[in-house]
């Protein structure tokens, strides 16, 4: 499975990391804009720079999925009905708008509107991406679960990415109380984004179990061969997100610095958790077709 689908695993994970990080950075910037404009700029400027190359890397990986990569430009020729065309168009648009936003945000007093528009286009990219899988003939994918999982992963990966980027740039520096409060808030948002797919998991299993033979086969894979990876995925993701929130809560009461090592460890746990989750997503999808 991995030999065949690694480009798509990388593309979906890394583009969700880029889009999620962008959204989290816009949230932090807008929360701090009035109270502490200096921190808003200092915390987010490196992050806003990094999102573009990360997105470019994701798009680069997607080329390896194609049998004829030189024809990639033709992937946007069927916008009227193909979610794949829409995904590539919105992903490209996100990349262009990222550049505009990055340029605009080099000025401290630039408004947040452009950031929100770019975030919206990013969310449309994720929606299109999930729609590709949900319009397939694999019951494990043609399900609300795909949307919940992809949007959840976007925000959780975004939180991890943002914390890593901010942690890198403010190493050893003392942050303002407002900055710590903003980081705390995006942490809670990420926790909600992590918990909702976990709560939905029993519903997902229920749908698969009451579905056709292919759906039941997927359910058996998830509760059989892929049970240990699935459990590991949730344990790692939960520990990672809780560790990050714990660091911020502790530090906002105390020294108000970000300990680089704990942050990197937590981010690594989240990335590995999401990676395993995505692996299971691809590996457990059984097709309804004959032979």
């Amino acid at each position, binding site marked *: 499975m991995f030999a065949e689908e690694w480009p798509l695993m990388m593309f979906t994970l890394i583009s969700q990391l880029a889009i999620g990080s962008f959204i989290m950075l816009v949230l932090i910037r807008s929360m701090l804009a009035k109270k502490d404009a200096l921190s808003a700029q200092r915390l987010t400027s490196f992050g806003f720079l990094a999102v573009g190359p990360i997105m470019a890397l994701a798009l680069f990986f997607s080329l390896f999925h194609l049998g004829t990569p030189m024809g990639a430009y033709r*992937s946007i020729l069927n916008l009227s009905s193909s979610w794949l065309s829409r995904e590539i168009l919105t992903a490209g648009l996100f990349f262009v708008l990222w550049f505009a936003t990055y340029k605009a945000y080099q000025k401290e007093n630039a408004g947040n509107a452009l950031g929100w528009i770019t975030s919206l286009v990013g969310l449309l990219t994720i929606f299109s991406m999930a729609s590709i899988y949900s319009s397939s003939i694999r019951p494990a994918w043609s399900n609300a679960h795909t949307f919940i999982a992809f949007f959840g992963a976007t925000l959780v990966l975004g939180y991890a990415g943002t914390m890593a980027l901010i942690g890198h740039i403010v190493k050893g520096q003392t942050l303002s109380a407002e900055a710590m409060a903003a980081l705390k808030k995006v942490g809670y948002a990420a926790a909600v984004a992590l918990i909702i797919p976990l709560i939905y998991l029993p519903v997902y299993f229920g749908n698969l179990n009451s579905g056709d033979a292919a759906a039941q086969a997927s359910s058996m894979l998830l509760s059989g061969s892929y049970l240990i990876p699935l459990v590991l995925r949730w344990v790692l993701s939960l520990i990672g997100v809780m560790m990050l929130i714990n660091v911020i809560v502790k530090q906002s009461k105390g020294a108000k610095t970000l300990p680089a090592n704990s942050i990197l460890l937590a981010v690594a746990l989240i990335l590995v958790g999401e990676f395993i989750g995505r692996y299971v997503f691809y590996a457990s999808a059984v097709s309804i077709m004959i032979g």
Partner: protein
Amino acid sequence: MAQLGFYYDMTICTSCKVCQIACSDKNDLEVGTLFRKVHNFEGGKFPKPWAYNLSMACNHCAEPKCTKNCPTGALYKREKDGIVMFDEEKCIGCKLCTWSCPYGAPKYIESKGKSGKCNFCVDLIDAGEQPACVDACQMRALEFGDIEELRKKYGNTADIKGLPESGITHPSITITPNKEAMK
């Protein structure tokens, strides 16, 4: 002309697979890639075992998911007879058609980096001939024509055991099933 389709008579098919071979020959397919495949189903136990065959190619669906999902428009329905056509020039090898077809008709061909599928032997049909599979069948188990005419003649059965639900894409096929294959 309306929608073209296939008729398959399971009750006389002997699974000789000459349709499969004629198709592979006509389309010059490499070993391992089949645009038409004869599937074999078996079950029951002594003294009442049963078996049936199912010859399947592209069903040129009325509402195909492959043409809808294909990002380049390489897969499209021909206006005059509803054949699901494939334009190899446009295909980029994204494999989404193979995730979209409930019948597994489009195949990804690694050596080309592109997909391929049954096009109803459109060159033969346009020259007034029959598709290679229909021509080759020694039991006359395969027919082709206006699907509405075929349904009038043979009934309208596209839902049999082993096939996904016809409601997904409305395939242009009708089958005379063995009793074990009936839903």
